[in-house]
C-alpha cells in the first residue's frame, strides 16, 4: 500500500504515517512544480494534523552518475525544505468548530500561515509559493496483492487521508538551469525533539512508492526492517545498516523477478537496480514532460543504459503499482501487468490542490428476497455479469473478461449505464461491481449474492453510493426502483419462499 502502515510503529500514531508522495509539474502551468504528501490512513471526516510533528518535503538536486550497470544518482548539496507545522485546536466559536491553524516554513526560513481545510490554500505575497493542507480522498489505488499477485479491486476505495500540498514557481525556486534533475522525499519528524535522547529523530519518510511494503517486506521469514528503514536519514543511509538493506533488496527483487517464472534480471543488472533503489527518492526532471505514464522512466532508462526522455516524477493519477510490478517482474519486456484497480476513488484533478476532497460517508440500499429455487438454479440465471435477466434492462453488451470487465446496459427507457466488474467469486456465489457512468452517484458499488437457505435460497443485492449531481432522495429512488424490480422478477421466476 504505497507507504501506508509501513511498519509496526506506524500503527501507534498514524498521523505520523506517510502514505504517499507525489511530485510533478502542474498540468495547467508547466512553470510550476507540485509536491503532495499524505498521512493518516483511514482518516475520518474530523481528522487533524499533529501539533508536534513536522511534515516536510525535501528536494535535493541530483547528478546522474552512470548508465546501465553503473546506473546511479548522487544527491548534491543543494537542498530545499518545505515544512508544515500545525497547532492544537482553539476553542469552538459561535460560527462552528474551530479550524486547525498552522504554517509552512519555506526554503530560506520565511513562513506562510495557513488554515487546514481551506480549499484555495494560501499563497505568498509574490505568488511564488502556494500551500494547502487538509482532508482528501486517498489518491492511491493498489490493484494487486503483493504476496499472491492476485488482481483485486482498489482496496483503499473510499478511504481518506490528510494531505499537504506545495506548489511553487520552478525557475525562481530550484534554479533548474544549474541542473534540472531532482530527488524528492517527504518525512515526518518530531517538532520538539528530546535534547537528551539519542533516539533517531524520524518517524517515517517516503521516496518511491512501495519501497517498504511491496519491496522490503516481501521476503518470507525475513525480519521486518521497515521500522529501521523509516528512521534512516533520507539521502544518507547509515553505512552500518546498508548491507542489511542491500541484502533485503537483492532477495526481494529476485523473488519479484521469479513471479512469472522468467528471469529478466541477471545478477549484474539486479545489483545495479538495487544500487538505484538504495537511493530512495522520487526522481523528477523539471525540464522534461511529466505524465501519468512517466513514473520511474528516469530510473528505467538509466538502468537500461539509455538517456531518459521524460521528467519521471509521480502524478496523482499515475498507476504506480502496475508500473512497478511490471518492471519488477518482466522488466517491461512482457505485457503490462494491469491490476484490478484502474483509478482512485476520486481521481486527481488538474488544478490546485490536485487531490480531491475527502470522501463523505457512503449511503446504501439493500434488498433481499427468499426464493424457492436452489442457490445453483438462481446463480445460473443471475450470476453471470453479462446475464440478461433484469426486467428494466433491454440490452446488455460485455467488453473484456474477468475483473475489469465492462457491461454496457441499455434500459427499457433508453438510458445507458456502464458498469465494471470488480470481482466475482463462484464459490460464494457473489459478484461485486462498480458503476462507471449512468446513475448520478460516485462512487457506486454493488454486490449481488446468493445464499442457501432451509427453504431454497436467498438473494441479496446491495448498493453503496454517494449521490453526485442529484439529491439523495432522487438517487435513492432510482437505486431502490432498480433493485426492487429485480427482486420482483426473481420472485416471479422462482417463486417466493415463505
Amino acid at each position, binding site marked *: 500500500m504505497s507507504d501506508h502502515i509501513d511498519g509496526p*510503529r506506524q500503527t*501507534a500514531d498514524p498521523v505520523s504515517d506517510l502514505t504517499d508522495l507525489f511530485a510533478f509539474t502542474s498540468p495547467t502551468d508547466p512553470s510550476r512544480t507540485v509536491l503532495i504528501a499524505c498521512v493518516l490512513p483511514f482518516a475520518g471526516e474530523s481528522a487533524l494534523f*499533529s501539533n508536534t510533528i513536522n511534515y516536510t518535503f525535501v528536494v535535493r538536486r541530483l547528478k546522474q552518475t552512470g548508465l546501465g550497470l553503473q546506473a546511479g544518482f548522487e544527491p548534491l548539496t543543494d537542498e530545499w525544505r518545505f515544512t508544515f507545522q500545525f497547532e492544537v485546536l482553539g476553542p469552538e466559536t459561535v460560527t462552528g468548530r474551530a479550524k486547525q491553524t498552522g504554517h509552512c516554513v519555506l526554503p530560506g526560513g520565511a513562513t506562510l500561515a495557513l488554515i487546514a481545510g481551506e480549499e484555495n490554500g494560501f499563497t505568498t505575497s509574490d505568488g511564488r509559493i502556494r500551500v494547502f493542507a487538509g482532508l482528501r480522498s486517498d489518491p492511491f489505488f493498489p490493484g494487486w496483492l503483493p504476496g499472491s499477485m492476485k488482481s483485486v479491486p482498489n482496496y483503499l476505495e473510499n478511504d481518506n487521508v490528510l494531505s499537504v500540498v506545495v506548489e511553487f514557481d520552478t525557475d525562481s525556486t530550484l534554479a533548474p538551469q544549474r541542473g534540472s534533475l531532482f530527488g524528492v522525499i517527504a518525512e515526518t519528524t518530531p517538532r520538539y525533539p528530546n535534547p537528551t*535522547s539519542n*533516539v533517531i529523530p524520524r518517524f517515517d519518510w517516503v521516496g518511491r512508492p512501495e519501497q517498504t511494503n511491496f519491496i522490503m517486506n516481501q521476503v518470507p521469514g525475513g525480519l*521486518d526492517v521497515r*521500522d529501521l528503514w523509516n528512521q534512516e536519514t533520507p539521502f544518507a543511509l547509515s553505512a552500518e545498516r546498508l548491507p542489511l538493506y542491500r541484502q533485503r533488496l537483492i532477495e526481494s527483487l529476485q523473488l519479484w523477478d521469479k513471479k512469472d517464472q522468467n528471469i529478466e534480471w541477471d545478477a549484474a543488472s539486479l545489483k545495479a537496480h538495487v544500487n538505484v533503489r538504495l537511493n530512495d527518492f522520487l526522481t523528477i526532471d523539471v525540464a522534461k514532460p511529466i505524465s501519468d505514464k512517466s513514473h520511474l522512466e528516469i530510473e528505467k532508462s538509466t538502468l537500461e543504459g539509455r538517456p531518459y526522455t521524460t521528467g519521471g516524477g509521480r502524478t496523482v493519477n499515475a498507476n504506480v503499482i502496475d508500473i512497478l510490478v511490471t518492471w519488477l517482474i518482466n522488466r517491461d519486456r512482457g505485457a503490462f501487468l494491469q491490476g484490478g484497480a484502474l483509478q482512485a476513488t476520486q481521481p486527481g484533478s488538474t488544478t490546485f490542490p490536485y487531490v480531491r476532497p475527502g470522501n463523505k460517508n457512503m449511503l446504501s440500499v439493500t434488498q433481499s428476497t427468499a426464493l424457492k429455487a436452489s442457490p445453483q438454479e438462481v446463480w445460473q440465471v443471475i450470476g453471470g455479469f453479462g446475464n440478461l435477466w433484469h426486467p428494466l434492462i433491454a440490452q446488455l453488451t460485455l467488453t473484456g473478461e474477468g475483473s475489469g470487465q465492462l457491461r454496457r446496459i441499455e434500459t427499457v427507457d433508453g438510458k445507458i449505464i456502464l458498469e465494471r466488474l470488480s470481482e466475482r467469486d463462484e464459490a460464494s456465489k457473489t459478484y461485486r461491481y462498480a458503476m462507471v457512468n449512468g446513475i448520478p452517484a460516485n462512487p457506486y458499488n454493488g454486490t449481488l449474492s446468493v445464499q442457501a437457505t432451509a427453504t431454497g435460497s436467498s438473494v441479496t443485492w446491495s448498493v453503496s453510493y454517494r449521490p453526485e449531481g442529484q439529491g439523495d432522495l432522487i438517487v435513492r429512488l432510482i437505486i431502490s426502483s432498480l433493485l426492487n424490480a429485480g427482486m420482483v422478477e426473481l420472485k416471479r421466476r422462482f417463486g417466493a419462499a415463505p
Partner: protein
Amino acid sequence: MNTPHFSITLPAATDGALALINHESILDRCWQTIDLHPDRLGIVAQLIDEEYRRSHFLGDASALDRLLALSETLLQHSAKSGEAYVLAAQIASLVHKFDQATQYLVQAKNLGASAHSLLRQQLSIDHAIGHNWKAVFETRQRLSMQSPTLQNLVALGALYAEMGLYQEAEHSYLRAITEDREHSPFSLAWACFQLGVLFGETLEPTQPATAQYWYEQALSYMPPYTHARVHLAELHLDARRLDTALKLLLPIQDSEDPEVSWRMAQLYEQKGEAHEANHHLARALRSFERVLGRHELAFADHAVDFYLEEGDNPEKALQLAMLNLDNRATLRAFELSHEAALACEQRAFAQSLADRAIAQWGHLPAFAHSSLSSAAKPPLNSAPGAALTPTSQHSTLSVSTIRAEV
C-alpha cells in the same frame, strides 16, 4: 529502586485532544468501510486497535461488544483466511476468552497464517494466562532486544513486575518512554500508567508520591484516561485529599467503567455524605453486574476486589475468582481466589489454593511479596478474613448497608 523521575525528560507527543479526535475519526471511518468491505483485514486490524483504545483509555465497555460483533463478521466473510483467525484470536484474548483464542490460533495455523503473527498472538495469550512463562520471558526479552518498541518494552516491563523483578520492570518502562519513537500520547500514557501501578500497587511498600507523579504524567498525555484517573484518585483518597480526588473523577463520572462509581462511593463516604455514597455504590454494583453479564471473564478479576470490599458479597467474589483462576492461573489470580476463599471462611480451600500457587509460582521473587507467601505456613490462630485489605476492614460502606437502608 526508583530512578529520580525529575531527571527524566519526557518526550513530546501529539496533543491528547487531537489524538482523541483522530482516534474517533478513524474509528468512525473504519466501521463505515467494514460495513461495505467486511473482508478488508487491514481495516479489521485497525478497528481492533481503536476499539481496544476506547476500552482501555476511555473505559468504554461497549467497545468489547463491538469487537465481538466484528469477530463474527470477520469469520463469516474471511473464513478461509489464516490471518482472519489470528485477528479473531486477538479479539478473543481482549475479552479474556483465552481457550477460544487458542482454538482460533490452531485454525489460523492450519489455514497458513504467518508464523510471525501466530507467534505474537500466542505470546500474548501465554503471557496473559501465565502459561509457559519461561518461554514467554525469553521471547519477550528477545523481542525487546530485536525491536525495542514501546509496545515490546512495556510488555516486558509488565512481565518483570509480575515476576517480582521490580528494578528491571522500572528500567524497561523507563526505556519505553525515553526511547519512544512512536509519538503516540496513547502509548506514552500507557507506559506512564504502568509505572504508576508499579509504584502505587505492586511494590511493597508502595511509593505513593512516585506513583502520583507517573499517573499525572499519563494524564498529561491523555487527559480522559479513565484508569489513570481512577488510580490517581485512589491515591488521593488514601491521603484524604478528597477535593483533588473529586476533581479527577467528576469529568468521568458518566463512564461505564464500574470502578469510577466505586471510587466515587468511597470518596463520598469519606466526606461523610452517605446518601451520595450509597447512590454511587448502587451504581457501581449495577455497572459491575452489567459488564459481568456481557463479558464475565474480562471483568472477573476487577469485580473480585469489589465484591470483597464494598460490594460485600464474598461468595460472588469467590465464584468470580475461581472463574478467573480457571481461565488464567497467574499469581494474581491465585491471590484473588485465596483472598476470596478466606473471606468465605473456607480456610482449607484457601490453603489448597495457596499450595497450588506455591507449587506453580513459589520460585518467583514476586512470591515473597505476595499475600500468599504467609499462607505457606499459616499461623494456627489466624482469624478468618485476616488477609482482607484495610479498606474492607475499616469501611462502613457496603452494599448490605444500602440494602438495609432500602
